[in-house]
């Protein structure tokens, strides 16, 4: 890996320069990044959007009092939206089963947010542990972990999760989370491993060793805080990707199943009547895109703030 050695040479050389440029107060990379982020409109907008999404996911009842599962076919079969009725049941119209699209869009946020966050946390912890072990110890531990990572990496994420999810007869949010974590941890492992290898060679690690620090202390107190930045960046960016993947699986009919409300399922059921009732597809698809967009913008902003190369 040619680029790994490059960063190993560059990072220690750049760090003193950055520190010397701001003599007034020494800040850690984390607080420095936070300082940068607060002034970025993109970060503020995407963070507010995500905050709103999380509130919707936690308490959908705050936004609508309509039951998203209550359908009235005779009254509301594909009734077009009434755009002046803000926050009411018919705001976005009704779907093919006479259910309020607005209520379904609101209640659908939970599945997406839960899957996105759980899969990201799961893959980060799993990949973080494996990457740390492989990068820190090297040798045969590294060989085994790296080869197993290669094996899992060879299976395309979408195909693999289709096969795994097919094994579940009734699928919930947790089966989707399980399938995506099982196949998704490899990227994190690679990122963490590369990062740990870079940090391991730094002088402060040698110093800690010379002072008699134990393996656990070196790993968690010295290496982890310095190696975590690239992992956080990849995690934030991939969160949006996992949300899109959950919707894709649900759209294919192999992800979440009906009592669970998911944008993917709604898009799938709306596609049959795309010409007569395009609004039934438009609103869940729009919400899904905005959600993914918010997480990708957040990831971009975090990367710019945490990457010392771009300073």
């Amino acid at each position, binding site marked *: 890996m040619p680029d790994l050695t490059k960063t190993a040479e560059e990072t220690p050389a750049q760090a003193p320069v950055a520190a010397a440029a701001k003599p007034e107060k020494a800040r850690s990379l984390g607080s420095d990044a936070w300082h940068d982020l607060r002034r970025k409109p993109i970060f503020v907008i995407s963070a507010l959007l995500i905050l709103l999404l999380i509130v919707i996911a936690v308490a959908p009842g705050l936004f609508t009092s309509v039951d998203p599962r209550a359908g009235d076919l005779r009254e509301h079969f594909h009734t077009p939206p009434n755009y002046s009725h803000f926050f009411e049941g018919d705001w976005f119209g009704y779907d093919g089963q006479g259910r309020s699209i607005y209520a379904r869009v609101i209640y659908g946020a939970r599945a997406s947010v839960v899957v996105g966050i759980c899969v990201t946390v799961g893959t980060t912890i799993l990949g973080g542990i494996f990457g740390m072990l492989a990068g820190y110890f090297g040798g045969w531990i590294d060989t085994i972990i790296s080869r197993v990572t290669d094996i899992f990496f060879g299976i395309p994420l*979408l195909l*693999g999760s289709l*096969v795994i999810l097919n094994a579940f007869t009734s699928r919930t949010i947790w089966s989707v989370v399980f399938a995506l974590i099982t196949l998704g941890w490899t990227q994190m492992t690679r990122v963490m491993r590369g990062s740990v290898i870079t940090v391991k060679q730094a002088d402060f690690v040698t110093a800690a060793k010379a002072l008699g620090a134990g393996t656990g202390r070196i790993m968690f107190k010295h290496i982890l805080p310095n190696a975590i930045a690239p992992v956080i960046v990849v995690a934030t960016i991939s969160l949006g990707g996992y949300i899109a993947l959950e919707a894709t699986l649900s759209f*294919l009919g192999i992800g979440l199943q009906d009592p669970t409300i998911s944008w993917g399922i709604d898009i799938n059921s709306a596609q049959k009547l795309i010409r007569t009732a395009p609004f039934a597809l438009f609103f869940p*698809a729009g919400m899904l895109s905005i959600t993914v967009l918010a997480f990708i913008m957040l990831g971009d902003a975090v990367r710019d703030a945490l990457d010392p190369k771009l300073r």
Partner: protein
Amino acid sequence: MGSYVLRRVLQMIPVFFGTTLLIFVMVYTLPGDPVTALFGEKAADPAVVASIKHKYFLDQPLWKQYLHYMGNLFQGDFGTSFTGRPVSDIMAGAFPVTIRLALLAFVFEMILGLALGMLSGLRRGSVQDTLVLVLTLMVISIPVFVLAYIAQTVFATNLGWVTPTVQDSYDLSQLVLPAVVLGSLSLAYVARLTRTSIGENLRADYMRTAVAKGLPRRTIVLRHLLRNSLIPVITFLGTDLGALMGGAIVTEGIFNVQGIGNVLYRAINTKEGPTVVGIVTVLVIIYLVASLLVDLLYAVLDPRIRYA
């Protein structure tokens, strides 16, 4: 270089066996009995079921099944699907379609992605740069199946340029729209990657030297800047060709392209073990070979990289 290639090929072997074993275990330990399912509503005759299971080696322990499968595979035999059709036959019908689709998407994302990336990378902060950034961000955040419906509605229903779904999967001109949809996500990545890479290289010392020497702008951009900036982009493109073929499930489904994705999706749903394992095995081989080629290309493009 020679010994590096040899080492890489040797490293590929355990990965190949590991991945195929993993997919084999995943497919064949699924609950549900595909053989009994063949009988549909009728009650299955135990003797017939046993004979079918024996024929397909399903009565053996899993590791024996895997060894048997691998043994046949190296003789070019991908096995027979539960409907009696050879898996190689099924793949021979579907793979050419998907390869064409993926190649079309690949050409599309490469040409347009590089052009857009250069357009924005060379003039950072300009209107065109912002436009490219916003457009690519939109493409990245709209899921591919939504994009497919938008394309279908606009180009087929509203404009009437193409039929909404593909009538003849072997007709290259009909594959253009699905290919554009399939390649759009990677296109956005290629454009952004090219932009970042150009931005980094613009500040390099050799660029200042080239400008100071008084070289024409054309030469500087094409010979100096582009050649150096393309290295990360080519890495991405190389691994993406395999990803395009594996990721075609959604696009092929929506546009009714009779390619590998469609066949695979049906096979997964009907628990057609031999077909799933066969197709995924070929996809894994494509992926492994592509990543090897990318690593070798690296050495050709960047003389600083020498493999011992």
